[in-house]
């Protein structure tokens, strides 16, 4: 359960001052690796490496760098300072993230504060003009915000509820559980583009003699009242239908999460409650559900960031219909169809900010209390 601070058992058992413990075979290996790495990089920076017709120079450089770094790590480990060693091992990831995430986003922020329109970079300072324009003069952006809200709420609620329901159903220890699990899980393997296209067909709203898709099934079953306009329903409810393919794809994932959460409640606990006279329903409601909170939180974060960035699915489903517009699509068409790079970057940064609003308070709280994520 979250909230308790894990006793830092594994903190240093030795003081932090440097204490070098020379381990000769390891030292020699470290030196060998450092030399090997440096010489590889040195020689590759002078010549090209061609293996079977492919230019592997960069990979060779990278490999040389890795070898060199491993040697450095071996030496660091001899200092018996585990904090430094931990940071050293984490260091490459941190550098990579610093460049590929923070560096690039910094570039994007800089672009969003400029006037760049057209294929020639133009970093003239424009302050917050792009952002102001988006919020004040732009009906399309308002539609985006509304659609994102509808989609996010529907998607997360749908996945959580359906996933929980499936997990509970499969918790009943039925035969054939594995088959059902497989069926519910496998939509995750389909790409968003493919599922958007297929669900677009299924949810086709044509009526009359052009009726097709699920509407046609309803008609042949005599369920005419269920025939719907699906995602062409007048706004804002049309957007809610776009949630269906997304939930189809990811409810198996939440189901698996919840199954894990439910199974972590020991059977003894449940048995004890049964002995005390609790019904199954009460067991679920009062014992199991509260223990699912951390799982739910993980799921909300993962699903939330997907829904705020959603792009492929809506394009495949809606063909860039403005009624189903979301920031991801708006950013794409503004940047690449309209060559308005500054405005597109502003939309992208706003997308990031919206996710941050969802996630950062949680991360900060996590940092402070040291609860697990």
């Amino acid at each position, binding site marked *: 359960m979250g909230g308790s601070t894990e006793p830092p058992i594994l903190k240093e058992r030795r003081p932090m001052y440097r204490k070098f413990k020379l381990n000769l075979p390891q030292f020699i290996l470290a030196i060998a690796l450092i030399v090997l790495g440096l010489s590889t990089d040195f020689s590759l920076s002078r010549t090209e490496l061609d293996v079977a017709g492919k230019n592997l120079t960069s990979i060779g450089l990278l490999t040389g760098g890795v070898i060199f770094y491993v040697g450095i790590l071996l030496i660091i480990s001899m200092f018996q300072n585990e904090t430094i060693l931990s940071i050293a091992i984490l260091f490459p990831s941190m550098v990579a993230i610093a460049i590929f995430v923070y560096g690039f986003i910094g570039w994007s922020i800089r672009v969003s504060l400029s006037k760049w329109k057209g294929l020639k970079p133009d970093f003239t300072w424009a302050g917050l003009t792009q952002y102001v324009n988006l919020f004040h003069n732009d009906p399309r952006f308002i539609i985006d915000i509304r659609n994102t809200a509808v989609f996010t709420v529907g998607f997360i609620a749908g996945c959580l509820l359906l996933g929980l329901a499936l997990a509970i159903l499969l918790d009943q220890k039925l035969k054939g559980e594995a088959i059902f699990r497989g069926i519910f899980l*496998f939509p*995750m393997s389909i790409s968003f583009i493919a599922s958007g296209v297929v669900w677009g067909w299924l949810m086709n709203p044509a009526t009359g003699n052009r009726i*097709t898709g699920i509407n046609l099934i309803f008609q042949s079953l005599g369920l005419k009242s269920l025939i719907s306009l699906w995602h062409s329903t007048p706004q804002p409810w049309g957007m809610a239908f776009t949630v269906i393919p997304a939930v189809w794809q990811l409810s198996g994932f939440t189901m698996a999460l919840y199954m894990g959460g439910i199974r972590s409640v020991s059977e003894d606990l449940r048995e004890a409650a049964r002995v005390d006279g609790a019904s199954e329903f009460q067991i679920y409601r009062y014992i199991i559900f509260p223990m699912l909170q951390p799982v739910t939180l993980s799921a909300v974060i993962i699903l939330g960031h997907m829904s705020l960035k959603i792009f492929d699915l809506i394009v495949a489903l809606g063909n860039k219909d403005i009624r189903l517009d979301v920031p991801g699509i708006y950013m794409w068409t503004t940047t690449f169809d309209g060559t308005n790079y500054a405005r597109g970057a502003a939309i992208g940064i706003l997308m990031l900010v919206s996710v941050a609003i969802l996630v950062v308070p949680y991360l900060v709280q996590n940092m402070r209390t040291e609860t697990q994520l």
Partner: protein
Amino acid sequence: MTRRIVVHTLIYIVLIALSIFYLLPIYLMLLTGFKAFNQVDLKTMWALPNAGLHIQNFIAGYKQLAPNLTNSLVMVIPEAILSSLLGSLNGYLLAKWKFRSSNLIFSLILFGMFIPYQSILIPLVKFMQAIKLYGDIPGLVLVHIIYGIPITTLIFRNYYAGIETEILEAGRIDGASLMGLYRYIMFPLSAPSFAVVIIWQFTQAWNEFLFAVVLTNQSHWPVTVALNNLAGSQLVQWNVLMAATLLAALPTLLVYLFLGRYFLRGLMAGALKG
């Protein structure tokens, strides 16, 4: 006991009804994939293929996708393995070695999961060009590994946090070092988590289009780009496209069908448990 049977029957009915919901799109894809071109029409969506099963669609789709399938495999397998190893190391350090800034570092790494990838395409390409990894598969592998660091670290960190620290403490007393603990205690216990991460990364990288189309040259396109090209610009052959989509989804589909239980076991063992 009859009440139990009634309840179980009801549950089965619900499960089967839900299964239909989950299987309907695949059924439609198969149905369309076996039709001839002039039979493909929204109006006749549910009609069974007349004139037999049009296997040519799958053959044509396969011919179109074959070279790119190899590209995808060569890209995805090393990427999944390497990013899971990296995530495992990171997760271990961040979960079990709580030095002062470990939470801060974790939060900063995790934040990388949230950026919209369209907005960083240009600086990404420029950087990959600068380090001469642009245009070919190794560069794409590197990019997927790096952008996979946040989620893999998250999953492993959660998983390791659920492992009792007493085990490590025992190893500590035996005199194991930081990496020794990892090598001899944590790593062997990580199988469920590795299953989750490898399968997740495999699926993500396999189905990914944006980086694939921007970072590779024409001869190194993964299967997602080839599939997109089957969609054509002015005329779409839906029957071949559906057949090819099924073919392209086959590896991930098989992974989930056959290895899905490990994925589930891993999740149930607490890979993302709070």
